């Protein structure tokens, strides 16, 4: 079974990418910053969750 950190990180990553897409259509830069930050945090969490 996949580690909970990997699943949580993947959820954060997906949410970040979704927010970034919304930014493309609404043009709100706050959404881009929020989306990319969530994506970056999600990526770091996944990296910490998977084995070397």
């Amino acid at each position, binding site marked *: 079974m*996949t580690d909970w950190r*990997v699943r949580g990180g*993947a959820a954060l*990553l*997906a949410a*970040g*990418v979704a927010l*970034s*897409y919304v*930014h*493309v*259509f609404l*043009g709100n830069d706050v959404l*881009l910053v929020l*989306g*990319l930050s969530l*994506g*970056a945090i*999600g*990526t770091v969490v*996944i*990296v910490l969750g*998977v*084995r*070397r």
Partner: protein
Amino acid sequence: MPKRLLHVAVPRGLSDRAEAALEEGELDYRRVDGDLSTLFVAYVPLEKVGDASDLLREAGVTEQGFVSISSTEALLSRRAEERERDEEEEEEEGELRVSRDELVSSAREMGEMTQNYLVLTVISSVIAASGVLADSTAVVIGSMVIAPLIGPAMASSVGTVTGEPELFRRGIFAEVVGLLVAVVSAAAFAALAFRYVLVPPIDILAIGQISERAVPGLLNVGIAFGAGVAGALSLTSGMSAALVGVMIAVALIPPAATVGIGIALGDPQVTLGSTVLLLVNVLSINLAGTLTFRYQGYAPGGFFERVRSGNALIWRVGFMLSFLVLLSTTMGVITYDTYTNNVFEQDVRSALTGEGSTLSGRTDVALAGYNVHYESAGYGFREEPSEVVVELRVSEPPPDAVAEGIARDVREGTGRRVPVVVEPREVTVVR
């Protein structure tokens, strides 16, 4: 002929059944009896490994003992050499492929999501984004070389065909996470590059690496499909997976980087166009891989497993095909659009330079060049000519009749009532 070394270790009680299985498989083996267990060592042609492991599994060897399959660099045995020579003489030229167990084992290894996989994906995506922004083909190719995306793509296909749902889930999960990481990395890099003026303020669609992915044509389906087939063959025939992985990355990493750049810029056309391309490529690679593994006969041996994996295969192939047709239709529209726009530009050239045109035979006015401007027509995917700008080289201002004649030529030559702007540029003639 490629061979594999089989080590079969079983408890003494099972040794006769294991030996019977090896006899049934017509394998050349040696038996070593210990106090509690027996070890068989067999040197087996590659195409017999699958049958041999099936027979050993049916004999219950894998329940209480183990079977290890490994490749050998060299075997020094006169008997083995003679046997090999005989086999080569008898053997018709046949297709060599690895056994199902080896395939599942290597797919499991390749499809694993590790720290290296994620870090290499981030690095390759950032390099691809900088290569795309710099319009440098060499840098983009460099990014593909280190991209590790072939593993998960092939793992999900192997999982579907061999009836290993866990392998399929792991492969798909690693593939989706890898692509999301690639998009976020490229978007973050591009946002920083634009924020800190690392990229000059130019029309982003003027960059060839971006425009070809923002407005993807149907040819890309063929590229991705070919990459999927090559990826599957690399696993089954022992070709270099690292080399074929570059081909898979061609279809995945640059489009993912372009999606990131589109997101950073907030450009709907670049984002949507490259997202469609990325999705079509992912589906094509997975579909091609799945069909290739199935065609090569990697379905499970048992009746119930075969039926179960067959059902899963039909559902997944149906799902991929449906989405592929839907997205390819969009790309078909773009391809048709590009084709009609190219025809329009050729018609404009013929209208301006052909026999009987306003400019033919005139010495006071010459064609310096022309530009066709386009405007978006329909969800950012389609483009239609909005204006034709004709530049003239003249020695003195031309009469209005010339501009009217040129506009008439363009409209009659193209069959479209598009606005025509004539821009005369005076040049001084030194005699």
